[in-house]
């Protein structure tokens, strides 16, 4: 299974199991989404449960809020994360707040799916990584898988969660990784990171499509005798402090790698957590390797922006030398 299959499989399992689960969005029904993540599901579950909506992100997110209050569990798609902004008001002012506003009377168990991230030679607005925007909003949880296995387990958990989950899908690796994934239902706890690879000299915290790139950089580092521990956050909010603390306490050095703009990013938050949790263990300043504080360039310029394993390796050397 690749990530697309894994997410499809997770949604399929939940649609099958729970009649309250619905999946909708622009082009989600008949053609199964522009990335085919929901392919075949309308055919299987009917037009009332898996469907195309009019072209309006606010309408999609807002109607999901209403449905959720009525007891349904909508899985909605924003066609690209760059097009979530028209829905921002519904997400921030309502999905994230309805439970608090009604003192837990109503909750909004909505999964807001959206492909995100660069590296696919796309038009403008099709390449951004703005997870920090959601992570800063009280009342939301933000999940980003990096493997088919995790994508399935996290999607099941997201659909079953009574909270609103922003589920960001690293489209660059939608089909790039194939894995054996159990056919049965399983879930992965939201809020827990994963040690992708153990190491002793330096910790790299990352997530999404960059986990693979970090792994490549770690191979380069290994050749120089540098042992890198890699953490895949999997959930951006609530972030897994424990896994970060335990790792950095051990290694004393940390780099956070994210493809988003640098300032006010997830990397800054991870560094803050590190200094809160492991200040005295630090042998070098927590570093961030990120996109620039720029818009992702159109394809011909994107190689400048995209974070290469070499760049990560270069920063590893810098941190180790410190």
């Amino acid at each position: 299974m690749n990530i697309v299959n894994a997410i499809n499989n997770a949604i399929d399992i939940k649609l099958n199991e729970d009649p309250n689960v619905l999946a909708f969005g622009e082009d989600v029904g008949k053609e199964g989404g522009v990335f085919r993540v929901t392919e075949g599901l309308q055919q299987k579950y009917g037009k009332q449960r898996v469907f195309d909506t009019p072209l309006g992100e606010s309408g999609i997110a807002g109607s999901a809020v209403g449905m959720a209050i009525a007891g349904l569990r909508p899985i909605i798609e924003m066609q690209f994360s760059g097009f979530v902004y028209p829905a921002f008001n519904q997400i921030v002012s309502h999905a994230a707040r309805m439970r608090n506003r009604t003192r837990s009377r109503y909750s909004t168990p909505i999964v807001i799916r959206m492909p995100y991230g660069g590296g696919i030679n796309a038009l403008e607005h099709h390449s951004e990584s703005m997870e920090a925007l959601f992570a800063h909003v009280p009342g939301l949880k933000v999940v980003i898988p990096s493997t088919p296995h995790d994508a399935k387990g996290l999607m099941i958990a997201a659909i079953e969660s009574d909270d609103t989950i922003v589920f960001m899908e690293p489209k660059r690796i939608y089909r790039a990784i194939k894995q054996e994934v159990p056919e049965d239902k399983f879930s992965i706890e939201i809020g827990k990171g994963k040690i992708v690879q153990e190491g002793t000299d330096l910790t790299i915290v990352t997530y999404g499509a960059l986990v693979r790139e970090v792994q490549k950089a770690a191979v380069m580092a290994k050749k120089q005798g540098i042992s890198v521990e890699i953490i895949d956050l999997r959930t951006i909010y609530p972030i897994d402090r424990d896994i970060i603390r335990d790792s950095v306490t051990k290694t004393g050095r940390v780099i956070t790698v994210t493809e988003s703009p640098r300032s006010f990013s997830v990397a800054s938050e991870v560094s803050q957590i590190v200094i809160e949790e492991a200040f005295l263990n630090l042998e070098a300043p927590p570093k961030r390797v990120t996109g620039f504080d720029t818009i992702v360039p159109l394809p011909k310029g994107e190689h400048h922006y995209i974070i290469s394993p070499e760049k990560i390796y270069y920063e590893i050397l810098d941190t180790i030398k410190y």
Partner: protein
Amino acid sequence: MFEKYNPINDLMLQVINNDGKVINKEFFPKLDDIQIIKAYKDMLFERTADLMTVSYQRQGRIFTYPPNYGQEAIHIASGMVIKNEDWLVPAFRELGAYLAKGATLKEIFLYFMGYEDGTVFKDANHILPISVPIASQLIHGTGLAYAAKYLNKKEVVFAYVGDGGTSEGDFHEALNFAAVWKVPVVFVVQNNQYAISTSKEDQTVSVNFAIKSVAYGMKGIKVDGNDLFAMYAALNEAHDYCSKGNGPVLIEALTYRKGAHTTSDDPTKYRDKAEEEKWEQKDPLKRLKSYLIDNKLFSEDQEKNIIDDYKKEIDRIFSEAENYEPYSLNEVFKHHYADMPQDLKNQQREHENFLKWKES
């Protein structure tokens, strides 16, 4: 009714005139005298409670409050039509409708005293909390109606918005989605002539608000919102229409916000006495009272007594609210997530540590 009052022709459904005379027998609703008397009393209660709330605010006993007076016919008629299983999706200026749906006045007071508890309406069935971001709630109405249809429930959703709110993109998406999905939701535009200081003319140059329904291929009707009978008739017809699976309806209720936008607002900055006086003639309570008195169903004497009783009751409820339990730190954190993140727990604990230190 929707054919006859097609908003394209800019007609308005009216049943009684400013003097309370029935001018449109065809659409006089099937209400018996007892129901009509009760409706009037409910309007009286809403007005009394509303005016008293404004004065509590002037006394500094609650925070900013958006008064309802002038718009009671819409609210009370809504309350009469909306059934227990139906959904009420408020904006924030529908006091009588909340109360009819089972919200308590105490809760309203609590809300404007600054408690989230006051917008839960915990004993009311199928009601949403007060919604401040203009027009955004309409889409929830569409979603609720989708759920009703999907789950085969006999529910109709009533979602409210102001004249100003019709300009928001969310108004457009809510109505379009509802029409495409053909779901049972009645959108009620309380056209009270103003959005804070902005007049209807600066809001839209469409012939009326009801005509906006045409853009979505849905039924729409303009109604005299200060005429209880007209409002009841239109809401009831809309309920019926929705229940039968015909899809959504848009009702424009023409009315006037007699008070300020909120207690922080000063309408003399943007409208004149002459206009206020013109609308005074159309006051919904005055009109219904004339009808009742003409038909010997009510007397001025009665009114005085009723109001006195209401005042006492309202004062009692208000002091109950004023003695509400203190807002604990726990309440700040507790309701954000079904599964609360450790970070929130830590933040609460840290703050408790600070409070302990501060006390010592």
